[in-house]
């Protein structure tokens, strides 16, 4: 009997010892400290990365060590889970052991139990919950989701349609960023007119002097000198007294205007002397025709022919017959009349007949090596090159304005390539374009023309340009004055342009968008089960759709358009437990720190401190 009794006593003693340990604050403190340290490690060491990344970052040896002790995914490791279980056990045991049926103990009980609840809830979620995501294209549906982080497909048991996806945007806001290079200092300042913003620690400053919400650069021609270096005319074209067109013609730049509606082309040329003047004024009609060079490789045959639709040529020394089928000044507009095309991408279509049949192809003057895939190429040794003179025009009526240094100025009218009349012209006088109702008038003449750039408020005319109607947000510009060792400089700066440097190249200002542009994104979701629509809801961030335990959160969107919506899919069966824990923790902790002290004073009024505090409470609450 006694033999049997001894081990029993021992066992009880042993039990009570583990029990003591499990109840102890010492264990609690140890667990808490270890958890804190692991948390630090979990943010200092990269988590959940590939083995290669670890090896690259920490070296092979250390990477292996980390993997072995699960430092690469601390928060999902076995030892961390064990720590949490131990924490739960410790909390449970100490709560059971220390519980006394007193009002003042409520806080202690509630907080400790709440933490156990939270942890239990988390475990339930981890074991039976769902954490995943899915993207749904607008107008499409899914009946699955992908789990995270391994992207496995799982069925939902019903269909979710994304009927619509919307992004709401804020009107953009802008800020200035001032940057001082040698100090590597950066300062962002609001782009408000009138404020001087100095960059502290440097002697640079920037002041916004003016602001245009929607600005554009206007280029206004001005006269720079009386020596005809870059002559320009401002001409006006009118029909029955109404101005139909007006604008600048620059002798050395854009020197022609073509009015396809009236089959008219006006050009402006400058002659250096009277002789050349004569020639230019008269030769206008014979505008050089485009020409086609045909080269037969290996045979040393080169032939040049004018491009005229329908013409056929035979090539001496070969069996080829070449026919020009079509000519377009602008390939992309080849179906509209030639006179309405501009010489953007001239091309000629040629048919080559030879011993192996017919080979037809487009030859582009700007891309001679390009092969049009739609047409077969049989005769690879036949190379075509079409060239179109700069001033080629197909217009029936032509007006040519010629000027020269000695002051002579003429206006020629040419019809069907024949010069009908040549007259001298004067400023501000109207000249009839013969046998039409058009009149032409030269309003201004600048011998040497330059451009003055100024930044002005944009007025109309851009709706639907590069964006849908109503979406135009403006292109803001600020007039900034930069101050520094070289004095003040003021200049207009447009948003979204490269940084603007101060003359010493050490100080720059950037004008750019500030903050988040996206105000909200929403998806209209529809849940369909067995062919029936069960729920429809517009979800957005902070407002999710719940169905059959699944919760669909708006979490992302297609960054390159608005084609799909990104949803987070979760199922948290333990959520109620966790939230109960949260609420209890709040109540408990408020009780301990804010209610208990007052309650105690009320309960134990008139008693000595030693009588109503236990020794431990005095320790815990620093009472002396």
């Amino acid at each position, binding site marked *: 009997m006694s033999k049997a009794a001894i081990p029993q006593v021992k066992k009880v003693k042993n039990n009570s010892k583990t029990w003591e340990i499990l109840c102890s*604050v010492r264990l*609690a403190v140890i667990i808490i400290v270890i958890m804190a340290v692991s948390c630090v490690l979990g943010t*200092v060491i990269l988590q959940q990365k590939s083995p290669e990344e670890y090896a690259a970052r920490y070296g092979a040896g250390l990477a292996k060590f980390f993997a072995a002790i699960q430092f690469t995914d601390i928060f999902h490791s076995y030892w961390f889970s064990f720590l949490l279980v131990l924490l739960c056990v410790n909390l449970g045991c100490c709560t059971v052991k220390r519980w006394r049926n007193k009002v003042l103990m409520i806080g202690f009980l509630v907080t400790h139990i709440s933490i156990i609840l939270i942890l239990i809830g988390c475990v339930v979620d981890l074991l039976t919950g769902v954490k995943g995501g899915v993207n749904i294209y607008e107008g499409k549906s899914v009946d699955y989701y992908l789990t995270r982080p391994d992207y496995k497909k799982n069925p939902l048991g019903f269909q979710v349609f994304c009927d619509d996806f919307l992004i709401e945007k804020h009107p953009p806001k802008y800020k200035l960023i001032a940057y001082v290079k040698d100090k590597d200092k950066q*300062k962002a300042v609001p782009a408000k007119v009138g*404020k001087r913003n100095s960059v502290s620690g440097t002697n640079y400053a920037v002041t916004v002097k003016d602001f245009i919400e929607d600005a554009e650069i206007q280029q206004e021609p001005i006269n720079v000198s009386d020596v005809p270096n870059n002559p320009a005319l401002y001409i006006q074209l009118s029909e029955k007294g109404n101005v139909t067109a007006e604008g600048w013609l620059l002798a050395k730049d854009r020197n022609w205007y073509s009015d396809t509606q009236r089959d008219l082309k006006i050009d402006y040329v400058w002659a250096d002397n009277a002789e050349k003047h004569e020639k230019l004024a008269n030769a206008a009609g014979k505008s050089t025709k485009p020409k086609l060079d045909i080269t037969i490789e290996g045979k040393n045959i080169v032939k040049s022919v004018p491009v005229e639709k329908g013409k056929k040529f035979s090539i001496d020394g070969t069996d080829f017959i070449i026919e020009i089928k079509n000519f377009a000044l602008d390939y992309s507009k080849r179906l509209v009349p030639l006179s309405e095309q501009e010489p953007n991408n001239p091309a000629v279509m040629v048919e080559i007949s030879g011993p192996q049949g017919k080979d037809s192809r487009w030859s582009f003057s700007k891309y001679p090596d390009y092969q049009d895939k739609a047409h077969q190429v049989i005769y690879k040794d036949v190379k075509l090159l079409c060239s179109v003179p700069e001033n080629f025009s197909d217009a029936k009526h032509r007006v040519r304005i010629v000027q020269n240094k000695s002051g002579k100025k003429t206006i020629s009218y040419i019809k069907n390539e024949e010069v009908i009349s040549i007259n001298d012209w004067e400023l501000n006088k109207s000249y009839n374009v013969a046998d039409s109702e058009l009149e032409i008038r030269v309003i201004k003449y600048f011998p040497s023309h330059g451009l003055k750039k100024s930044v002005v408020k944009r007025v109309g005319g851009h709706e639907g340009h590069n964006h849908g109607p109503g979406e135009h947000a403006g292109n803001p510009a600020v007039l900034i004055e930069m101050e520094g060792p070289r004095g003040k400089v003021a200049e207009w700066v447009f948003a979204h342009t490269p940084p603007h440097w101060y003359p010493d190249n050490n100080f720059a200002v950037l004008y750019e968008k*500030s*903050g988040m542009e996206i105000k909200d994104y929403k998806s209209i979701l529809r849940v369909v089960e067995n062919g029936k629509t069960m729920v429809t809801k517009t979800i957005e961030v902070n407002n999710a759709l719940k169905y059959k335990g699944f919760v669909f*959160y708006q979490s992302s969107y297609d960054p390159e358009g608005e084609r799909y919506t990104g949803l987070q899919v979760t199922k948290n069966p333990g959520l109620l437990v966790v939230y109960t824990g949260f609420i209890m923790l709040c109540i408990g902790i408020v009780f301990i720190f804010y209610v208990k002290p007052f309650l105690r004073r009320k309960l134990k009024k008139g008693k000595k401190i030693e009588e109503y505090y236990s020794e*431990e409470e005095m*320790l815990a609450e620093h009472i002396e």
Partner: protein
Amino acid sequence: MDFMLKLTLYVYCAAIVAYIVREVWRAKSMRWVAFGVLSSGFILNTILVLTRWSEAHHAPMSDKFESFVFFAWSIALVYLIFELVTIFIVKVHESRIGIIGALQCVLVAWMICSALQADSTIKELPPALQSNWLVTHVICYFLSYSALSMSFSAAIVYLIHRWIFSGKQKVAEVVESGIQLKKDYSFDKLAYIAVSIGFPFLTIGLITGSIWAKGAWGTYWGWDPKEIWSLISWLVYLTYMHLPLMLPKTNIKKSFRPILLSIILLIAFPIVLFTFMGLHKLPTSADSDHIYAE
């Protein structure tokens, strides 16, 4: 705004000086001067917060600039309340609490300084921040941080006192003139009170943050660096709260225990500050949703 911010900074700097003078001089009138200077700084700070609120059309605590200004405001608020309580409720007049005031003012001035460096342009809130939880969550955290900063200052003062008086302690006990001395020593008690005010708010902040994350992202806890570090701060203060229960059962000397606790507070508050504004230094922060955009 910039001018107001600078003015506030200067007033707070003046408050540092005022509190130090008050400590050295110990005249009753000086105490009110110091209190007045800090209060006027606080009023300026309040104006800053309110103008920002009306300009930005959202609660002014969403980016770095706004949080710095708001944090400064809440530190000043908590300290002023604390001082009023000591004067009118606890009725302690001749304590050395002013030194805490000076330290708190240093922290406030530092925050305003940081705000001056930060990008002060008004930014639109990203969708996730457009939630009422933001306000609750952030206010809880800033109140908590402010109270905890006081525990930090108190711990510093306590340790310095212990260090200065380490030789004289016995003498003081013998002479029994230690009433004043004892009050000064009770900075560890003060630190405890500050933690007991700040810790519940820290807990509630953690919980509201978690509920908010659930609403916005679908997970109440995602092991995000910001979440982890707020958990770390919480765990450290939890240790501080439980340690006094454990220490008697160890063989650590009784006189050393408050020193140990103060040292923990000394470690804890920098962790809090790191959680607040240092997280972008972490290698794991690249994937985080929480860190203020630079």
